[in-house]
Structures are given as C-alpha cells and as structure tokens.
C-alpha cells in the first residue's frame, strides 16, 4: 500500500458552495477508487477563498505569506490534484486563476489533474475544455480525459439514466485520476535549496561546443 497525497483546490465563494460540493464528491470518489486499488490516500482541501488576501498580496509584492507558501508546497508536492472552480464570464473565476498564477511554471509537471467546474446552466460546460484544460496543460499537468461539469440542474435530475448522470461522471473521472496516481510515475520536484545544481555543471553548460 503506497501513501498518495491528493489535494483539492476549490474556488467556490458561497457557503455552502456547489463548487466545494463537487470537489468533495470528486475527492470521495477518488479516495474510494484509490483504496480499491490498494493505495492509501492522504487528502487535503484548499479553499482558495481562505487565501484571497494573501494571494492578492503575493501578486502585488511578489512574496507569499508563510501560510500560502505551505499550501502551494502541498499542491506542488501532491500525487494528484482535483481543481474545481465556478465558471464566471465564460471562464474559471479570477480568484481561481490567481492561485495558479502564483505557482511556478513547471511546478506541476507530470501531476495528474482532474478538472471540474460548476455553473448555473450546462451551456457553460465547454469552459472546462477551452479554459481549464489548456491552463493545466500549460502548467505541465497531465489532465484527465473526463472533466466534470455540474450545472444547478445536475444536483437533482431524476430522469437522467444512472450511467449518464453527474454521479456516473464523477465516478468515471475519479477512476481515471486514481489510476493515474496509482501508476505513480511522478517524481516530486527537486528542492533547489536542498539539492542545488553544482556550480561546475552551471559552468560546464556555458562552454562553447
């Protein structure tokens, strides 16, 4: 049994938030799938709202607070990420984007990512494909094929067949994430402060051919 760290980043605003609800469902389904595969999930939920002030301050001053840095470190070191946001004005929320803007480029390289979003109507569901997926592809994440969009109506849709509803999509996406995490190919990023590139190597790379 391998210890797998699974982090949810959720950018819902209200309390309770349907975005958080979706994040919790994706988390529970992924935990279940991991356990079935003989893995031991270690989970953490990041409410971006709780870091809103620190994120703006980081943006303006270039410096993370200790609390924000600890959270970023947890995301960067995760074995799997579930990222969920409300869709505002045809894309992820600004607050959600700020969180991923302050993460170093390449820091999420190879990280399995499950993307999810919520909105008032299903007409915004493709924001997952035209906004969320390219964002995490740019950041180097390995984005799961199934992305989960939950419109308000999805939380109570009695006439949808069980294999096509929200729960089925959650289970399918969670199974993909759990499988990618269990494959365990991601190496935790090297800490450049613990393991610096030796200066001889920096010098050598300078030499003309």
């Amino acid at each position: 049994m391998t210890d797998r760290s699974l982090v949810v980043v959720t950018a819902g605003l209200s309390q309770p938030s349907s975005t958080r609800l979706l994040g919790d469902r994706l988390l529970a389904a992924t935990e279940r799938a991991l356990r079935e595969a003989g893995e031991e999930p270690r989970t953490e939920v990041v409410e971006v709202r709780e870091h809103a002030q620190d994120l703006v301050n980081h943006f303006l001053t270039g410096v993370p607070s200790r609390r924000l840095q600890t959270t970023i470190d947890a995301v960067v070191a995760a074995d799997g990420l579930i990222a969920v946001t409300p869709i505002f004005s045809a894309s992820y929320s600004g607050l959600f984007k700020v969180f991923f803007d302050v993460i170093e480029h390449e820091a999420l390289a190879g990280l399995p990512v499950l993307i999810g979003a919520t909105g008032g109507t299903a007409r915004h569901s493709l924001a997952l494909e035209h906004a969320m997926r390219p964002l995490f592809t740019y950041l180097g994440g390995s984005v799961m094929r199934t992305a989960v969009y939950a419109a308000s109506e999805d939380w109570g849709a009695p006439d949808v067949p069980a294999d096509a509803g929200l729960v089925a999509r959650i289970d399918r996406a969670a199974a993909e994430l759990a499988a990618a995490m269990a494959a365990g190919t991601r190496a935790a990023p090297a800490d450049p402060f613990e393991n610096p590139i030796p200066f001889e190597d920096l010098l050598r790379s300078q030499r003309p051919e």
Partner: protein
Amino acid sequence: MQFGIFSVSDITTDPTTGRTPAEHERIEAVVAIARKAEEVGLDVFALGEHHNPPFFSSSPTTTLAYIAAKTERIILSTATTLITTNDPVKIAEDYAMLQHLADGRVDLMLGRGNTGPVYPWFGQDIRNGIPLAVENYALLHRLWREDVVDWQGTFRTPLTGFTAVPRPLDGIPPFVWHGSIRSPEVAEQAAYYGDGFFHNNIFWPGFHVRRMVGLYRRRYEHYGHGPADTAIVGLGGQVFMRPNSQDAVREFRPYFDHAPVYGGGPSLEEYADTTPLTVGSPQQVIERTLGFREFAGDYQRQLFLVDHAGLPLKTVLEQLEMLGEIVPVLRREFDAVRPAHVPSDPPTHASQKASRDAGTPATPEGPPPTLLEAAP
C-alpha cells in the same frame, strides 16, 4: 560588522505633497545622502543600477567616483551591478578604475536585473539571466586576476591577449557580493567562488531568507572556503524611525500605501509583520535588526533602504542621523553574541592587503584549487 544604506535611485512623487523631484535634484540628493551616511558614522553606501525611468542611476561608477572624492572613509558599493547586461570587460575596467580613485574603498554587488526590456536594449535575453551571470562573472573573475586573458564564451566576442586596465589596486580585486532574492544558482555561485552573498530581504519573510542563506553557507563550506558559519553574508533592511513609534507609523503610512512596490497590497502592519520593514522607535529598530541573525546566522553587512517611496531629502537625512545613533548599539550587541571564529566584517581592500602582506589570506579566496582546472 558593517552598517550602511543602499539607494535604488528611484525618482518617486512624494504622496503627501504631490511633488516629484527633478532628476538633477534627486542626483544631488543622493550625493548629499552618501556624504551624510559617512558623517553619521555608517560604513557603506551602495547605489543601484537601472536603465529605465523612474530611476536615474544608469552610471554608478561615475556617481560613486564623485562621492569618493567628497568622502574619506565610507566604503562604496553597488546594489546591484548588472552582471547580465553589462559587458564584463567594462565592469572589470570601470570598477578597477573606481577602486584606484577611491583608494580601495570599493566593493560591488552583482545582480541580474529583473526588468525584461533592459535585456534586449543591451542585446541580451532575460531567459538567459542565469547563464549570463555565470559566464560573465567567470570572465570578470579572470580579468581581475590574470594579466593577460585568452577567453571564449557564448555571449560576447572572444578575447585573445587581452589585459584589463587599470589592474586592480595593489593586485587585489574588489570584493564581490552576489545578490539574489530567490535564485539558488546565485547562492551556489557565491559559495563556489568564496564571495559574499547578499539577500535583499526587504520584501521577504525570514523563513525564505533562511533557506537561501542556509544554502549559501552549506555550499561555501562544501567548496572548502571555511566553516558554514564563517561565510560572508549581507542583508537588506528597511526602517523608518521617530522617537515615538506612533509618530513613525503616522508619518510613514502614506509613503507605504503609495509605494510602487507594495502599494494597494498588504497593510503596513501586515507587511512589517512578515518582512524586515520596521516602522517605529529606534529601540524597536534595534530589537528587530538584532533578530535577523536568528534566520541568517551571524552576518557581516547590514544595509538599510531609507531614501525611497518619495521621502523628501530632509526626512532621509533625519533618518540617517537616527541610524547613526543606533548603529553603535547594534554593533556592540552583534559583537557580543558573535562567536570568536566568525569574521565580524567582510573582507575590505585594507584587510585583504594586510593579510596578503602577512602571508595569511584571511578568507580563502577564489574557486577551490581542486576545481580550478575544471573551470574554463
């Protein structure tokens, strides 16, 4: 231990009056500030280098040479000298010249510069920042130590049979600091050469500074320059003092709230809580500054930023008077806790000359001998 100030040479509107000093006025003010720094007993005046408004200091050696002529004792340094976009040959020449004119009262701090367009303006690319710093310094290091240099690299035209003149004063190159806020490669570079490492921690919380300085110290020892706790460390700091701390906060707040680097972000109180910014009474500044060694270890140089954010010259000079009063206290307190084997000061021209003449180099200098052959 050395105490001093550094100026980034910004020309900023005073938010309390709406007045913006003219370039000429600000340039004269910086000279007055440097002279005042010496008068109140500070050890170092360091000047930034920028090639874009709202800064004026594109030509630091000109300014520093003038200040050298107007002062007797203060060490002149930079904050920082751009090792990326300057030709290392010109740095070798300019700073050796300055060293002669200032009778050795010169060291310099190298930095990469983080303004994207400056790189193409000087024919470079910011994405090569680290490789430029590595190659250019490797050349600069040789130009000051070898009379005739044959050299070939990636970023500048090759040199064959080149001698940088004037040669460093007494054959002793200016001491070099490598400044970086967040690049472990620069801490590694400083450690490799046994040079100083400066962390301008004015924007950074202690836990981060501890990681950077810790890396430098560990690698300094690894490269054979001496125990980690004897590595040469400098720190930034940012203070505003009034005898009564409430007066200091009241007077400084509008400058903080409108400063280009943090305006609109955290409150003064939040910022002072997580960074070295200290706005208060002289006693508060003393206590806060003494606390820096808790995350950086015993260090050798403390530079404060005092002339920024549109503060008028009169206020800056008052701040310097107060710094002059607290520095003897800081020096005494730091001296009292520093272990005997840790150097109190960074190498100076005078100390390096004295130890060379005595045949005992105080600080092992240059790359480790076993590695010299591997270096280009």
